[in-house]
């Protein structure tokens, strides 16, 4: 019973994902527009990206969870996987209440623009149909030219529909703090166009009951043309302008200094922030808070052992800074051997990690030799060696036992044990066996810290909360020397913008026949 309760506490992650599975369907069709102008006043605003907080709730829990699964569990029974403890239930219900107000806000922008788009698409059809419905008898008959215009109208509407679907109907990946200037501009433009067309139509066609039907059809075709051009404008403004690289962004993580350089085009600060975050999840190694600091034993020796006495002066009020400065200077002058200890401790740590890694590799290699993939023809014709046929999950569990201890020791040495539960290791082992991977391929996940995406959970209804901190309004464009930072609860990413240098490309033509060589001479003649 003791073993099982430990295990189910450890499978908090897997049950957590199961209970909020229903949130997964709501994540489907969004758009990345947001008219949320409530946070317009302050400068520090929020970006939300879909996903789930990895370490927010768990970063403090890592220590008190029991890591002895390598020694205590030998066989995994089916019952403990499906048990949901009480605390999981309360946590799931709390998340349910948290997420619902955010969902509504995420939908406001896309719904509005969807309605506007639909209205704009249906307008030409309305222009055509209204005269037919209202005053069909008094319309002039219009033969072949009208039919030609009908065909062109139909095809243009089809093209508009398809390209709108391709360009705009994509699930948005982030909600931006301020509204997206270009999109709002385009939506305003569309609204203006359609409104002015309707106005003209209402005054000049509906009122006097215009009889020239061909003119009306031509008018509807011109509206569709205008919509196509607006879509071209949207394509250029929203997609193409950002493709050509113009700036180099340096992204540095504040806690451990991991840095990357990226090239982007002309973007506003908030869009550049979303772009950086996209690449953060796939490029940066995961942030492991356990790996950061120098051990206290090394650092604490520095400032001890000095007391400052002031002789004589009674009214020495402002001497505190002077005293501390004196202490620092004295401590610096004292012979400091902490760098020595740091060096030796690092070397020792390296050696320990390497030793554990060697044991792990050997154990895994040996474990993999225990199973073999069953070929199809062997299954039919082997009555003399009846072997138990297993599916991947059982095979994984069967060979997990011999390597469990070495794996657990290795993860503990490299401080990775919060990221890999026993369940996840068995799942990964099953995956590797199914795809015929070698032990080395199985181990690549554990030997090097992977990008943050690797440790994500699948459910992402609430999104990951990032805060964009900047001294400039976030809708302004990138320019040289701009610095903004993206903050999360326990670390931040600082982004610096530098423009890419202007390239002066010259030309030099080399005649292919001009490559000639001579031998170096050194002769000696006797005279």
């Amino acid at each position, binding site marked *: 019973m003791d073993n099982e309760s430990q295990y189910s506490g450890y499978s908090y992650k897997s049950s957590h994902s199961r209970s909020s599975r229903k949130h997964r369907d709501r994540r489907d069709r969004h758009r990345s527009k947001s008219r949320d102008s409530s946070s317009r006043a302050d400068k520090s605003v929020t970006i939300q990206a879909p996903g789930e907080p990895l370490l927010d709730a768990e970063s403090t829990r890592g220590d008190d969870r029991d890591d002895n699964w390598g020694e205590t569990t030998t066989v995994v029974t089916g019952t403990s996987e499906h048990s949901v403890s009480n605390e999981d239930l309360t946590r799931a219900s709390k998340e349910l209440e948290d997420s619902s107000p955010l969902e509504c806000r995420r939908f406001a922008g896309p719904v509005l623009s969807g309605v506007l788009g639909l209205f704009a698409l249906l307008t030409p059809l309305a222009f055509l149909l209204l005269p037919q419905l209202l005053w069909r008898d008094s319309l002039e008959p219009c033969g072949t030219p009208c039919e030609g215009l009908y065909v062109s109208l139909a095809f243009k509407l089809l093209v508009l529909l398809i390209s709108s679907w391709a360009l705009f109907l994509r699930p948005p990946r982030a909600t931006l703090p301020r509204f997206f200037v270009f999109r709002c501009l385009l939506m305003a433009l569309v609204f203006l166009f359609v409104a002015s067309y309707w106005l003209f139509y209402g005054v000049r066609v509906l009122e006097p009951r215009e009889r020239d039907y061909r003119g009306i059809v031509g008018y509807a075709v011109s509206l569709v043309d205008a919509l196509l051009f607006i879509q071209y404008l949207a394509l250029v403004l929203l997609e193409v302008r950002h493709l050509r690289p113009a700036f180099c962004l340096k992204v540095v993580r504040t806690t451990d200094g991991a840095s990357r350089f990226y090239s982007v085009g002309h973007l506003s600060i908030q869009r550049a922030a979303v772009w950086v975050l996209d690449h953060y999840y796939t490029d940066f190694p995961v942030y492991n808070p356990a790996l950061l600091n120098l051990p206290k034993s090394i650092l604490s020796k520095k400032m001890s052992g000095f007391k400052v006495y002031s002789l004589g002066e009674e009214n020495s009020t402002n001497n505190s800074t002077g005293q501390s400065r004196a202490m620092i200077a004295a401590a610096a002058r004292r012979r400091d051997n902490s760098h020595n200890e740091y060096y030796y401790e690092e070397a020792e740590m390296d050696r320990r990690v390497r030793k554990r890694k060697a044991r792990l590799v050997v154990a895994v290699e040996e474990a993999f030799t225990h199973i073999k993939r069953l070929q199809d023809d062997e299954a039919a014709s082997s009555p003399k060696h009846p072997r138990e046929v297993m599916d991947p999950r059982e095979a994984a569990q069967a060979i997990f036992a011999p390597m469990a201890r070495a794996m657990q020791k290795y993860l503990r040495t490299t401080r990775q044990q919060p990221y890999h539960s026993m369940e996840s290791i068995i799942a990964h082992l099953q995956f590797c066996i199914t795809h015929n991977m070698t032990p080395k391929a199985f181990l690549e996940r554990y030997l090097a810290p992977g990008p943050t995406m690797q440790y994500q959970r699948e459910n992402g209804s609430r999104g990951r909360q990032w805060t964009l901190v900047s001294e400039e309004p976030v809708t302004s464009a990138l320019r040289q020397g701009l610095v903004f930072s993206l903050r999360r609860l326990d670390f931040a990413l600082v982004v610096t913008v530098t423009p890419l240098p202007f390239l002066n490309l010259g030309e030099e033509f080399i005649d292919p026949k001009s490559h000639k060589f001579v031998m*170096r*001479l*050194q*002769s*000696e*003649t*006797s*005279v």
Partner: protein
Amino acid sequence: QQRIEIHKLRDGDNLILGFSIGGGIDQDPSQNPFSEDKTDKGIYVTRVSKGGPAEVAGLRMGDKIMQVNGWDMTMVTHDQARKKLTKKNEDVVRLLVTRKSLENAVRQSMMQH
């Protein structure tokens, strides 16, 4: 700088002087072991045969030949130098050579003043 007069030795049909030269404007100056400045493309004496007329006349290995019978040797090709030294109708060649030890002595005497 030293003036050396070598009397050629008649050996059958040839007139030999008893030394070998290296260098020239068409050669690679960086492989010259005797020159101080490795871009010097002048003609250097690379070998002096024992007992030959050159040794008798006082020519030493490593000497740089500046003139042969009045012809300048500092800007000639290897072949031109060879030709100037082996003219068939001359029995005596008068060389103007300079030697490293000579140069040092000259420099030292100049420094003393």
